[in-house]
Protein backbone atom coordinates (compact mmCIF):
# COMPACT_ATOMS: atom_id res chain seq x y z
CA UNK A 1 0.00 0.00 0.00
CA UNK A 2 1.42 3.33 -0.96
CA UNK A 3 0.34 6.71 0.34
CA UNK A 4 -0.18 9.51 -2.16
CA UNK A 5 -0.45 13.20 -1.37
CA UNK A 6 -4.21 13.21 -1.11
CA UNK A 7 -4.12 10.35 1.41
CA UNK A 8 -1.47 12.21 3.40
CA UNK A 9 -3.71 15.27 3.40
CA UNK A 10 -6.64 13.18 4.58
CA UNK A 11 -4.62 11.66 7.43
CA UNK A 12 -3.44 15.12 8.50
CA UNK A 13 -7.05 16.27 8.52
CA UNK A 14 -8.15 13.28 10.61
CA UNK A 15 -5.30 13.94 13.06
CA UNK A 16 -6.28 17.65 13.22
CA UNK A 17 -2.78 18.77 12.29
CA UNK A 18 -2.48 21.54 9.73
CA UNK A 19 -0.03 20.58 6.98
CA UNK A 20 0.69 23.09 4.22
CA UNK A 21 0.24 21.80 0.67
CA UNK A 22 3.92 22.19 -0.16
CA UNK A 23 4.84 19.91 2.77
CA UNK A 24 2.63 17.04 1.59
CA UNK A 25 5.05 15.34 -0.86
CA UNK A 26 7.76 15.00 1.81
CA UNK A 27 5.20 13.80 4.34
CA UNK A 28 3.81 11.18 1.98
CA UNK A 29 7.32 9.99 1.25
CA UNK A 30 8.10 9.62 4.99
CA UNK A 31 4.86 7.71 5.52
CA UNK A 32 5.82 5.34 2.73
CA UNK A 33 9.24 4.70 4.25
CA UNK A 34 7.69 3.86 7.62
CA UNK A 35 4.85 1.82 6.14
CA UNK A 36 7.36 -0.06 3.97
CA UNK A 37 9.12 -1.03 7.19
CA UNK A 38 5.84 -2.04 8.83
CA UNK A 39 4.83 -4.22 5.87
CA UNK A 40 7.34 -6.84 7.03
CA UNK A 41 4.54 -7.93 9.34
CA UNK A 42 2.81 -9.47 6.32
CA UNK A 43 5.46 -12.22 6.34
CA UNK A 44 4.19 -13.53 9.69
CA UNK A 45 1.64 -16.33 9.78
CA UNK A 46 -0.97 -15.00 12.19
CA UNK A 47 -3.67 -17.52 11.35
CA UNK A 48 -5.63 -18.34 14.50
CA UNK A 49 -3.61 -15.95 16.70
CA UNK A 50 -5.56 -13.74 19.09
CA UNK A 51 -4.67 -10.03 18.96
CA UNK A 52 -3.20 -8.98 22.29
CA UNK A 53 -5.50 -6.96 24.50
CA UNK A 54 -3.58 -6.95 27.79
CA UNK A 55 0.07 -7.82 28.18
CA UNK A 56 -0.38 -9.05 31.74
CA UNK A 57 -3.04 -11.70 32.27
CA UNK A 58 -5.16 -9.78 34.74
CA UNK A 59 -8.65 -8.41 34.76
CA UNK A 60 -8.96 -4.70 35.03
CA UNK A 61 -10.01 -3.70 38.51
CA UNK A 62 -13.48 -2.38 39.03
CA UNK A 63 -14.39 0.24 41.57
CA UNK A 64 -17.56 1.64 43.01
CA UNK A 65 -19.19 4.09 40.62
CA UNK A 66 -19.18 6.95 43.07
CA UNK A 67 -17.92 10.52 43.12
CA UNK A 68 -14.41 10.60 44.54
CA UNK A 69 -13.65 14.28 44.25
CA UNK A 70 -15.07 17.53 42.92
CA UNK A 71 -15.54 21.21 43.69
CA UNK A 72 -12.21 22.04 42.08
CA UNK A 73 -13.31 24.37 39.31
CA UNK A 74 -10.40 26.76 39.85
CA UNK A 75 -7.86 23.95 39.66
CA UNK A 76 -9.48 22.43 36.59
CA UNK A 77 -9.38 25.75 34.79
CA UNK A 78 -6.02 26.95 36.08
CA UNK A 79 -4.07 25.76 33.03
CA UNK A 80 -6.58 26.73 30.36
CA UNK A 81 -5.27 29.06 27.64
CA UNK A 82 -8.62 30.86 27.76
CA UNK A 83 -11.00 30.46 30.70
CA UNK A 84 -13.84 32.86 31.39
CA UNK A 85 -16.53 32.97 34.04
CA UNK A 86 -15.78 29.45 35.17
CA UNK A 87 -15.75 27.92 31.69
CA UNK A 88 -13.25 26.89 29.03
CA UNK A 89 -13.57 29.40 26.19
CA UNK A 90 -13.26 28.32 22.55
CA UNK A 91 -13.98 29.96 19.19
CA UNK A 92 -17.55 29.91 17.96
CA UNK A 93 -18.64 26.31 17.26
CA UNK A 94 -22.21 26.82 16.03
CA UNK A 95 -23.08 29.31 13.28
Amino acid at each position, binding site marked *: *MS*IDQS*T*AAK*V*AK*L*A*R*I*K*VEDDALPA*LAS*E*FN*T*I*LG*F*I*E*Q*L*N*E*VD*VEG*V*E*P*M*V*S*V*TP*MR*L*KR*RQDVVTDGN*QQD*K*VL*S*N*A*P*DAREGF*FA*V*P*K*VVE
Partner: protein
Amino acid sequence: MSELNKLGLAEARDALRAGDVTSVELTESCLTAIDEADALNAFVHKTPEIAIERAKAADDRIKAGDAPSMCGLPIGIKDLFCTKGVPSQAASKILDGFKPEYESTVSQQLADAGAVMLGKLNMDEFAMGSSNETSVYGNAVSPWRRGNDEAQLTPGGSSGGSASAVSADLCLAATGTDTGGSIRQPAAFVGITGIKPTYGRCSRWGIVAFASSLDQAGPMTKNVRDAAIMLETMCGHDPKDSTSAELAVPNFEAMLTGDIKGKKIGIPKEYRMDGMPTEIEKLWVDGAAMLKDAGAEIVDISLPHTKYALPAYYVIAPAEASSNLARYDGVRYGRRAQLAQGDGITEMYEKTRAEGFGPEVQRRVMIGTYVLSAGFYDAYYNRARKVRTLIKKDFEDVFATGVDAILTPATPSASFGLGEMTEADPVQMYLNDVFTVTVNLAGLPGISVPAGLDAQGLPLGLQLIGRPWEEGDLLNTAYALENAAGFVAKPGKWW
Protein backbone atom coordinates in the same frame (compact mmCIF):
# COMPACT_ATOMS: atom_id res chain seq x y z
CA MET B 1 33.24 14.63 52.62
CA SER B 2 33.94 16.32 49.31
CA GLU B 3 31.99 16.08 46.08
CA LEU B 4 28.91 14.61 47.70
CA ASN B 5 27.10 14.72 44.37
CA LYS B 6 29.32 11.85 43.22
CA LEU B 7 27.83 9.45 45.75
CA GLY B 8 25.33 6.78 44.84
CA LEU B 9 22.04 6.27 46.66
CA ALA B 10 23.21 3.47 48.96
CA GLU B 11 26.43 5.24 49.96
CA ALA B 12 24.62 8.51 50.61
CA ARG B 13 21.86 6.76 52.56
CA ASP B 14 24.40 5.07 54.79
CA ALA B 15 26.30 8.34 55.30
CA LEU B 16 23.05 10.14 56.20
CA ARG B 17 22.10 7.46 58.70
CA ALA B 18 25.55 7.50 60.22
CA GLY B 19 25.26 11.26 60.64
CA ASP B 20 28.35 11.88 58.50
CA VAL B 21 26.46 14.19 56.16
CA THR B 22 23.14 16.00 55.95
CA SER B 23 20.59 15.99 53.17
CA VAL B 24 21.01 19.75 52.87
CA GLU B 25 24.74 19.26 52.23
CA LEU B 26 24.07 16.55 49.65
CA THR B 27 21.43 18.69 47.98
CA GLU B 28 23.58 21.82 47.88
CA SER B 29 26.40 19.82 46.33
CA CYS B 30 24.06 18.63 43.57
CA LEU B 31 22.58 22.11 43.02
CA THR B 32 26.09 23.47 42.52
CA ALA B 33 26.93 20.69 40.09
CA ILE B 34 23.69 21.40 38.18
CA ASP B 35 24.46 25.11 37.90
CA GLU B 36 27.90 24.31 36.51
CA ALA B 37 26.48 21.90 33.93
CA ASP B 38 24.20 24.05 31.79
CA ALA B 39 26.27 22.92 28.79
CA LEU B 40 24.74 19.44 29.20
CA ASN B 41 21.19 20.85 29.10
CA ALA B 42 20.06 17.98 31.31
CA PHE B 43 18.04 19.90 33.93
CA VAL B 44 15.49 22.04 32.10
CA HIS B 45 13.47 23.25 35.10
CA LYS B 46 15.50 23.69 38.26
CA THR B 47 13.69 23.63 41.60
CA PRO B 48 16.31 24.64 44.19
CA GLU B 49 13.78 26.08 46.67
CA ILE B 50 11.73 22.89 46.70
CA ALA B 51 14.93 20.88 46.99
CA ILE B 52 16.28 22.73 50.02
CA GLU B 53 12.87 22.66 51.71
CA ARG B 54 12.57 18.90 51.23
CA ALA B 55 16.17 18.35 52.27
CA LYS B 56 15.55 20.17 55.56
CA ALA B 57 12.43 18.08 56.15
CA ALA B 58 14.40 14.93 55.36
CA ASP B 59 17.13 15.87 57.82
CA ASP B 60 14.45 16.25 60.50
CA ARG B 61 13.06 12.82 59.67
CA ILE B 62 16.49 11.23 59.77
CA LYS B 63 17.17 12.83 63.15
CA ALA B 64 13.84 11.52 64.41
CA GLY B 65 14.81 8.02 63.28
CA ASP B 66 12.01 7.90 60.70
CA ALA B 67 14.02 7.47 57.52
CA PRO B 68 13.06 5.20 54.64
CA SER B 69 15.84 4.30 52.20
CA MET B 70 15.27 7.22 49.83
CA CYS B 71 15.00 9.80 52.63
CA GLY B 72 17.16 12.84 51.96
CA LEU B 73 18.52 11.62 48.63
CA PRO B 74 18.57 14.25 45.84
CA ILE B 75 17.22 13.02 42.51
CA GLY B 76 16.08 14.36 39.16
CA ILE B 77 12.63 13.79 37.71
CA LYS B 78 12.02 13.30 33.99
CA ASP B 79 9.84 16.05 32.53
CA LEU B 80 7.24 13.40 31.59
CA PHE B 81 6.15 13.13 35.25
CA CYS B 82 3.53 15.62 36.40
CA THR B 83 4.87 17.45 39.42
CA LYS B 84 2.55 19.74 41.33
CA GLY B 85 3.14 23.42 40.71
CA VAL B 86 6.29 22.71 38.70
CA PRO B 87 6.39 22.89 34.88
CA SER B 88 5.73 19.45 33.39
CA GLN B 89 5.64 19.67 29.64
CA ALA B 90 6.97 16.39 28.26
CA ALA B 91 9.56 18.50 26.40
CA SER B 92 6.79 19.71 24.10
CA LYS B 93 5.87 23.20 23.01
CA ILE B 94 2.20 22.23 23.20
CA LEU B 95 2.44 21.97 27.01
CA ASP B 96 4.26 25.28 27.35
CA GLY B 97 3.35 26.82 30.68
CA PHE B 98 1.56 23.75 32.03
CA LYS B 99 1.85 23.46 35.81
CA PRO B 100 -0.10 20.46 37.07
CA GLU B 101 -2.38 20.77 40.06
CA TYR B 102 -1.46 17.21 41.03
CA GLU B 103 1.56 14.95 41.46
CA SER B 104 2.21 11.67 39.63
CA THR B 105 1.93 8.60 41.84
CA VAL B 106 5.56 7.59 41.29
CA SER B 107 7.00 11.02 42.10
CA GLN B 108 4.61 11.26 45.07
CA GLN B 109 5.85 7.92 46.41
CA LEU B 110 9.43 9.13 46.07
CA ALA B 111 8.56 12.39 47.82
CA ASP B 112 6.71 10.54 50.59
CA ALA B 113 9.81 8.43 51.13
CA GLY B 114 11.77 11.65 51.62
CA ALA B 115 13.54 11.87 48.25
CA VAL B 116 14.56 15.41 47.29
CA MET B 117 13.52 16.67 43.84
CA LEU B 118 16.24 18.84 42.28
CA GLY B 119 14.32 19.65 39.10
CA LYS B 120 12.93 18.34 35.85
CA LEU B 121 15.02 16.54 33.26
CA ASN B 122 15.26 16.89 29.50
CA MET B 123 13.85 14.20 27.22
CA ASP B 124 12.60 13.61 23.70
CA GLU B 125 9.25 15.27 23.04
CA PHE B 126 6.50 13.04 24.47
CA ALA B 127 9.24 10.39 24.91
CA MET B 128 9.35 9.89 21.15
CA GLY B 129 12.96 9.60 20.10
CA SER B 130 16.22 7.80 20.76
CA SER B 131 18.67 10.71 20.91
CA ASN B 132 17.00 13.53 22.86
CA GLU B 133 17.02 15.60 19.67
CA THR B 134 13.24 16.10 19.47
CA SER B 135 13.02 18.15 22.70
CA VAL B 136 11.59 21.67 22.71
CA TYR B 137 14.35 22.52 25.19
CA GLY B 138 17.07 21.59 22.68
CA ASN B 139 19.38 18.59 22.81
CA ALA B 140 20.56 17.07 26.05
CA VAL B 141 24.27 16.39 25.72
CA SER B 142 26.20 13.37 26.92
CA PRO B 143 29.05 14.03 29.35
CA TRP B 144 31.04 11.47 27.37
CA ARG B 145 33.30 12.32 24.43
CA ARG B 146 35.22 10.28 21.88
CA GLY B 147 38.69 10.74 23.31
CA ASN B 148 39.79 14.33 22.67
CA ASP B 149 37.19 14.88 19.96
CA GLU B 150 34.97 17.75 21.08
CA ALA B 151 31.97 16.66 19.01
CA GLN B 152 28.83 16.55 21.14
CA LEU B 153 27.37 13.09 21.60
CA THR B 154 23.82 12.02 22.37
CA PRO B 155 23.01 10.68 25.84
CA GLY B 156 20.35 8.57 24.09
CA GLY B 157 16.62 8.91 24.42
CA SER B 158 14.05 9.38 25.34
CA SER B 159 15.32 9.70 28.94
CA GLY B 160 18.41 11.56 27.72
CA GLY B 161 18.41 14.27 30.40
CA SER B 162 18.12 11.63 33.12
CA ALA B 163 21.04 9.68 31.63
CA SER B 164 23.25 12.74 31.22
CA ALA B 165 22.48 14.04 34.73
CA VAL B 166 23.20 10.75 36.52
CA SER B 167 26.34 10.06 34.51
CA ALA B 168 27.68 13.57 35.14
CA ASP B 169 26.88 13.33 38.89
CA LEU B 170 24.38 16.19 38.84
CA CYS B 171 22.07 14.06 40.97
CA LEU B 172 22.35 10.74 42.78
CA ALA B 173 19.74 9.08 40.55
CA ALA B 174 16.83 9.97 38.29
CA THR B 175 13.46 8.70 37.16
CA GLY B 176 13.03 7.55 33.59
CA THR B 177 10.28 6.02 31.53
CA ASP B 178 10.55 3.29 28.94
CA THR B 179 8.12 2.60 26.10
CA GLY B 180 10.51 0.94 23.64
CA GLY B 181 13.89 1.26 25.35
CA SER B 182 13.87 4.83 26.70
CA ILE B 183 15.46 3.88 30.03
CA ARG B 184 17.79 1.11 28.89
CA GLN B 185 19.25 2.65 25.71
CA PRO B 186 20.26 5.98 27.32
CA ALA B 187 21.59 4.14 30.40
CA ALA B 188 23.79 2.04 28.09
CA PHE B 189 24.98 5.13 26.17
CA VAL B 190 26.28 6.87 29.31
CA GLY B 191 27.51 3.94 31.40
CA ILE B 192 24.81 3.81 34.09
CA THR B 193 22.20 1.28 35.21
CA GLY B 194 18.56 1.48 34.12
CA ILE B 195 15.71 -0.91 34.79
CA LYS B 196 12.26 -1.08 33.24
CA PRO B 197 10.10 -3.19 35.54
CA THR B 198 7.30 -5.55 34.53
CA TYR B 199 4.33 -3.75 32.97
CA GLY B 200 2.03 -2.91 35.87
CA ARG B 201 4.72 -2.64 38.58
CA CYS B 202 4.76 1.16 38.59
CA SER B 203 1.65 3.26 38.42
CA ARG B 204 1.34 5.24 35.21
CA TRP B 205 -0.97 7.78 36.86
CA GLY B 206 0.26 11.33 36.35
CA ILE B 207 2.90 10.35 33.81
CA VAL B 208 2.17 11.96 30.45
CA ALA B 209 0.94 9.05 28.33
CA PHE B 210 2.70 8.00 25.12
CA ALA B 211 1.66 4.38 24.45
CA SER B 212 -0.30 3.18 27.44
CA SER B 213 0.11 -0.57 26.89
CA LEU B 214 3.91 -0.19 26.77
CA ASP B 215 4.83 2.73 29.06
CA GLN B 216 6.56 1.95 32.36
CA ALA B 217 8.55 4.12 34.75
CA GLY B 218 11.82 2.99 36.28
CA PRO B 219 14.98 4.24 37.99
CA MET B 220 18.24 5.31 36.33
CA THR B 221 21.08 4.96 38.80
CA LYS B 222 24.83 4.70 39.27
CA ASN B 223 24.75 0.99 40.11
CA VAL B 224 22.50 -2.04 40.52
CA ARG B 225 22.08 -1.68 44.29
CA ASP B 226 20.81 1.86 43.82
CA ALA B 227 18.38 0.61 41.17
CA ALA B 228 17.01 -1.93 43.65
CA ILE B 229 16.54 0.72 46.35
CA MET B 230 14.84 3.26 44.12
CA LEU B 231 12.68 0.75 42.23
CA GLU B 232 11.19 -0.50 45.47
CA THR B 233 10.03 3.02 46.32
CA MET B 234 8.60 3.61 42.83
CA CYS B 235 6.59 0.35 42.64
CA GLY B 236 3.26 -0.60 44.12
CA HIS B 237 -0.42 -0.87 43.46
CA ASP B 238 -2.31 2.32 42.73
CA PRO B 239 -6.10 2.41 42.49
CA LYS B 240 -5.75 5.34 40.08
CA ASP B 241 -4.09 3.13 37.43
CA SER B 242 -6.31 0.17 36.60
CA THR B 243 -3.36 -1.66 34.99
CA SER B 244 -1.18 -1.40 38.08
CA ALA B 245 -0.63 -4.78 39.69
CA GLU B 246 -1.98 -5.61 43.10
CA LEU B 247 1.14 -7.47 44.13
CA ALA B 248 3.39 -7.08 47.13
CA VAL B 249 6.65 -5.26 46.37
CA PRO B 250 9.61 -7.24 47.71
CA ASN B 251 12.66 -5.75 49.36
CA PHE B 252 14.72 -5.84 46.16
CA GLU B 253 17.94 -4.75 47.86
CA ALA B 254 17.79 -7.70 50.24
CA MET B 255 17.72 -10.02 47.22
CA LEU B 256 21.16 -8.85 46.04
CA THR B 257 23.31 -11.76 47.13
CA GLY B 258 25.40 -11.96 43.98
CA ASP B 259 24.88 -15.71 44.05
CA ILE B 260 23.62 -16.93 40.67
CA LYS B 261 24.81 -20.54 40.89
CA GLY B 262 22.58 -22.83 38.89
CA LYS B 263 20.71 -20.00 37.17
CA LYS B 264 19.98 -20.63 33.53
CA ILE B 265 20.85 -17.71 31.23
CA GLY B 266 19.56 -17.78 27.65
CA ILE B 267 21.47 -16.35 24.68
CA PRO B 268 18.98 -15.65 21.87
CA LYS B 269 20.45 -16.35 18.45
CA GLU B 270 18.11 -13.86 16.74
CA TYR B 271 19.85 -10.96 18.50
CA ARG B 272 23.01 -11.64 16.51
CA MET B 273 22.39 -8.98 13.89
CA ASP B 274 24.15 -8.58 10.56
CA GLY B 275 26.57 -5.68 10.70
CA MET B 276 26.69 -5.62 14.51
CA PRO B 277 30.00 -4.01 15.61
CA THR B 278 32.54 -6.66 16.66
CA GLU B 279 33.03 -4.80 19.95
CA ILE B 280 29.39 -5.39 20.87
CA GLU B 281 29.57 -9.01 19.78
CA LYS B 282 32.65 -9.42 21.99
CA LEU B 283 31.03 -7.65 24.95
CA TRP B 284 28.11 -10.04 24.69
CA VAL B 285 30.34 -13.12 24.58
CA ASP B 286 32.39 -11.77 27.50
CA GLY B 287 29.22 -11.07 29.49
CA ALA B 288 28.04 -14.64 29.01
CA ALA B 289 31.44 -15.91 30.13
CA MET B 290 31.28 -13.75 33.27
CA LEU B 291 27.89 -15.16 34.21
CA LYS B 292 29.16 -18.67 33.53
CA ASP B 293 32.18 -18.06 35.76
CA ALA B 294 29.77 -16.91 38.46
CA GLY B 295 28.10 -20.31 38.31
CA ALA B 296 25.27 -19.79 35.84
CA GLU B 297 24.45 -22.20 33.06
CA ILE B 298 24.52 -20.60 29.60
CA VAL B 299 22.06 -21.99 27.04
CA ASP B 300 21.34 -21.08 23.43
CA ILE B 301 17.73 -20.11 22.91
CA SER B 302 15.53 -18.92 20.06
CA LEU B 303 13.04 -16.06 20.04
CA PRO B 304 11.84 -16.54 16.46
CA HIS B 305 9.67 -13.43 16.08
CA THR B 306 12.33 -10.94 17.23
CA LYS B 307 12.71 -9.46 13.77
CA TYR B 308 9.07 -8.39 13.75
CA ALA B 309 9.16 -6.57 17.07
CA LEU B 310 10.17 -3.16 15.73
CA PRO B 311 7.63 -3.13 12.90
CA ALA B 312 4.89 -4.25 15.33
CA TYR B 313 5.99 -1.55 17.76
CA TYR B 314 5.80 1.11 15.04
CA VAL B 315 2.15 0.24 14.53
CA ILE B 316 1.07 -0.19 18.15
CA ALA B 317 2.96 2.72 19.73
CA PRO B 318 1.88 5.37 17.17
CA ALA B 319 -1.70 4.03 17.28
CA GLU B 320 -1.87 4.47 21.04
CA ALA B 321 -0.04 7.81 20.80
CA SER B 322 -2.51 9.18 18.27
CA SER B 323 -5.28 8.38 20.71
CA ASN B 324 -3.47 9.63 23.84
CA LEU B 325 -2.29 12.85 22.20
CA ALA B 326 -5.79 13.73 20.99
CA ARG B 327 -6.20 15.51 24.34
CA TYR B 328 -3.81 18.29 23.27
CA ASP B 329 -6.41 20.51 21.70
CA GLY B 330 -5.51 23.97 22.98
CA VAL B 331 -8.56 24.08 25.23
CA ARG B 332 -7.80 22.65 28.65
CA TYR B 333 -4.07 23.14 29.14
CA GLY B 334 -0.90 24.21 27.42
CA ARG B 335 -0.56 26.47 24.46
CA ARG B 336 -3.17 27.57 21.93
CA ALA B 337 -2.12 28.91 18.54
CA GLN B 338 -2.84 32.52 17.59
CA LEU B 339 -6.00 32.42 15.50
CA ALA B 340 -6.93 34.48 12.48
CA GLN B 341 -10.17 36.43 12.09
CA GLY B 342 -12.99 33.99 11.38
CA ASP B 343 -11.12 30.84 12.46
CA GLY B 344 -13.41 28.27 14.01
CA ILE B 345 -12.75 25.45 16.40
CA THR B 346 -11.33 23.10 13.74
CA GLU B 347 -8.76 25.71 12.70
CA MET B 348 -7.91 26.16 16.37
CA TYR B 349 -7.22 22.43 16.76
CA GLU B 350 -5.25 22.18 13.53
CA LYS B 351 -3.09 25.24 14.07
CA THR B 352 -2.50 24.49 17.75
CA ARG B 353 -1.36 20.95 17.02
CA ALA B 354 0.73 21.95 13.98
CA GLU B 355 2.57 24.59 16.02
CA GLY B 356 2.70 22.68 19.28
CA PHE B 357 3.90 19.25 18.13
CA GLY B 358 7.37 18.81 16.67
CA PRO B 359 7.97 16.88 13.42
CA GLU B 360 8.57 13.43 14.99
CA VAL B 361 5.47 13.67 17.17
CA GLN B 362 3.38 14.82 14.21
CA ARG B 363 4.74 11.95 12.16
CA ARG B 364 3.83 9.35 14.78
CA VAL B 365 0.39 10.81 15.48
CA MET B 366 -0.40 10.71 11.77
CA ILE B 367 0.99 7.18 11.28
CA GLY B 368 -1.14 6.12 14.24
CA THR B 369 -4.17 7.84 12.76
CA TYR B 370 -3.58 6.04 9.47
CA VAL B 371 -3.19 2.52 10.92
CA LEU B 372 -6.35 2.99 12.96
CA SER B 373 -8.39 4.45 10.12
CA ALA B 374 -11.28 2.62 8.52
CA GLY B 375 -10.06 0.02 6.05
CA PHE B 376 -6.57 -0.30 7.52
CA TYR B 377 -7.36 -1.24 11.12
CA ASP B 378 -7.24 -4.98 10.42
CA ALA B 379 -4.34 -4.90 8.00
CA TYR B 380 -2.08 -2.93 10.33
CA TYR B 381 -3.30 -2.57 13.89
CA ASN B 382 -4.88 -5.97 14.43
CA ARG B 383 -2.07 -7.74 12.62
CA ALA B 384 0.49 -5.97 14.82
CA ARG B 385 -1.41 -7.00 17.95
CA LYS B 386 -1.37 -10.62 16.75
CA VAL B 387 2.37 -10.44 16.14
CA ARG B 388 2.70 -9.00 19.65
CA THR B 389 0.96 -12.12 21.00
CA LEU B 390 3.54 -14.25 19.15
CA ILE B 391 6.46 -12.18 20.50
CA LYS B 392 5.22 -12.64 24.05
CA LYS B 393 4.75 -16.37 23.41
CA ASP B 394 8.39 -16.62 22.25
CA PHE B 395 9.46 -15.49 25.72
CA GLU B 396 6.92 -17.70 27.52
CA ASP B 397 8.18 -20.74 25.64
CA VAL B 398 11.76 -19.96 26.62
CA PHE B 399 10.92 -19.34 30.27
CA ALA B 400 8.93 -22.60 30.30
CA THR B 401 12.17 -24.47 29.58
CA GLY B 402 13.59 -23.18 32.87
CA VAL B 403 15.49 -20.14 31.61
CA ASP B 404 15.79 -17.54 34.40
CA ALA B 405 17.07 -14.58 32.42
CA ILE B 406 18.13 -13.67 28.89
CA LEU B 407 21.35 -11.84 28.07
CA THR B 408 21.56 -9.52 25.04
CA PRO B 409 23.41 -6.37 24.05
CA ALA B 410 21.51 -3.25 25.19
CA THR B 411 22.04 -1.30 21.98
CA PRO B 412 23.31 -2.02 18.46
CA SER B 413 26.01 0.70 18.76
CA ALA B 414 27.68 3.05 21.19
CA SER B 415 26.44 6.63 21.50
CA PHE B 416 26.54 8.64 18.27
CA GLY B 417 27.06 12.32 17.56
CA LEU B 418 24.21 14.79 17.91
CA GLY B 419 23.08 15.65 14.39
CA GLU B 420 24.73 12.59 12.84
CA MET B 421 21.39 10.93 12.16
CA THR B 422 19.64 14.03 10.84
CA GLU B 423 19.96 12.99 7.22
CA ALA B 424 18.92 9.39 7.87
CA ASP B 425 15.31 8.35 7.37
CA PRO B 426 13.21 7.91 10.54
CA VAL B 427 13.50 4.11 10.40
CA GLN B 428 17.29 4.30 10.90
CA MET B 429 16.74 6.05 14.22
CA TYR B 430 14.09 3.48 15.20
CA LEU B 431 16.70 0.69 14.89
CA ASN B 432 18.31 1.94 18.12
CA ASP B 433 15.59 0.10 20.01
CA VAL B 434 16.00 -3.21 18.21
CA PHE B 435 17.20 -5.08 21.34
CA THR B 436 14.96 -3.36 23.88
CA VAL B 437 11.57 -3.08 22.22
CA THR B 438 10.70 -6.80 22.47
CA VAL B 439 10.72 -6.44 26.26
CA ASN B 440 8.04 -3.72 26.20
CA LEU B 441 5.88 -5.68 23.77
CA ALA B 442 6.05 -8.71 26.09
CA GLY B 443 5.59 -6.60 29.25
CA LEU B 444 8.75 -8.06 30.83
CA PRO B 445 11.34 -6.52 33.15
CA GLY B 446 14.64 -5.55 31.51
CA ILE B 447 17.79 -3.98 32.89
CA SER B 448 20.76 -2.36 31.20
CA VAL B 449 24.12 -2.75 32.96
CA PRO B 450 27.30 -0.96 31.84
CA ALA B 451 29.84 -3.62 30.87
CA GLY B 452 32.70 -2.06 28.95
CA LEU B 453 34.09 0.69 26.72
CA ASP B 454 34.49 0.69 22.96
CA ALA B 455 37.71 1.61 21.15
CA GLN B 456 36.75 5.29 21.28
CA GLY B 457 36.30 5.14 25.03
CA LEU B 458 32.49 5.18 25.00
CA PRO B 459 30.38 2.99 27.32
CA LEU B 460 28.59 -0.13 26.11
CA GLY B 461 25.84 -1.91 27.99
CA LEU B 462 24.41 -5.38 28.27
CA GLN B 463 20.74 -6.09 28.81
CA LEU B 464 19.25 -8.79 31.01
CA ILE B 465 15.60 -9.72 30.51
CA GLY B 466 13.74 -11.41 33.36
CA ARG B 467 10.55 -13.32 34.04
CA PRO B 468 7.45 -11.25 34.75
CA TRP B 469 7.30 -9.88 38.33
CA GLU B 470 10.74 -11.29 39.14
CA GLU B 471 12.64 -8.01 39.23
CA GLY B 472 14.38 -9.13 42.42
CA ASP B 473 15.92 -12.16 40.74
CA LEU B 474 16.75 -10.07 37.67
CA LEU B 475 18.46 -7.40 39.78
CA ASN B 476 20.50 -10.09 41.50
CA THR B 477 21.70 -11.49 38.17
CA ALA B 478 22.52 -7.93 37.09
CA TYR B 479 24.40 -7.47 40.36
CA ALA B 480 26.52 -10.54 39.62
CA LEU B 481 27.21 -9.22 36.11
CA GLU B 482 28.10 -5.80 37.50
CA ASN B 483 30.52 -7.35 40.01
CA ALA B 484 32.21 -9.37 37.28
CA ALA B 485 32.35 -6.59 34.69
CA GLY B 486 33.79 -4.12 37.20
CA PHE B 487 32.80 -1.09 35.13
CA VAL B 488 34.12 2.04 36.86
CA ALA B 489 34.82 4.47 33.99
CA LYS B 490 33.50 8.02 34.32
CA PRO B 491 33.46 10.83 31.77
CA GLY B 492 36.18 13.47 32.18
CA LYS B 493 34.69 16.83 33.17
CA TRP B 494 34.77 19.27 30.22
CA TRP B 495 31.55 21.17 30.91
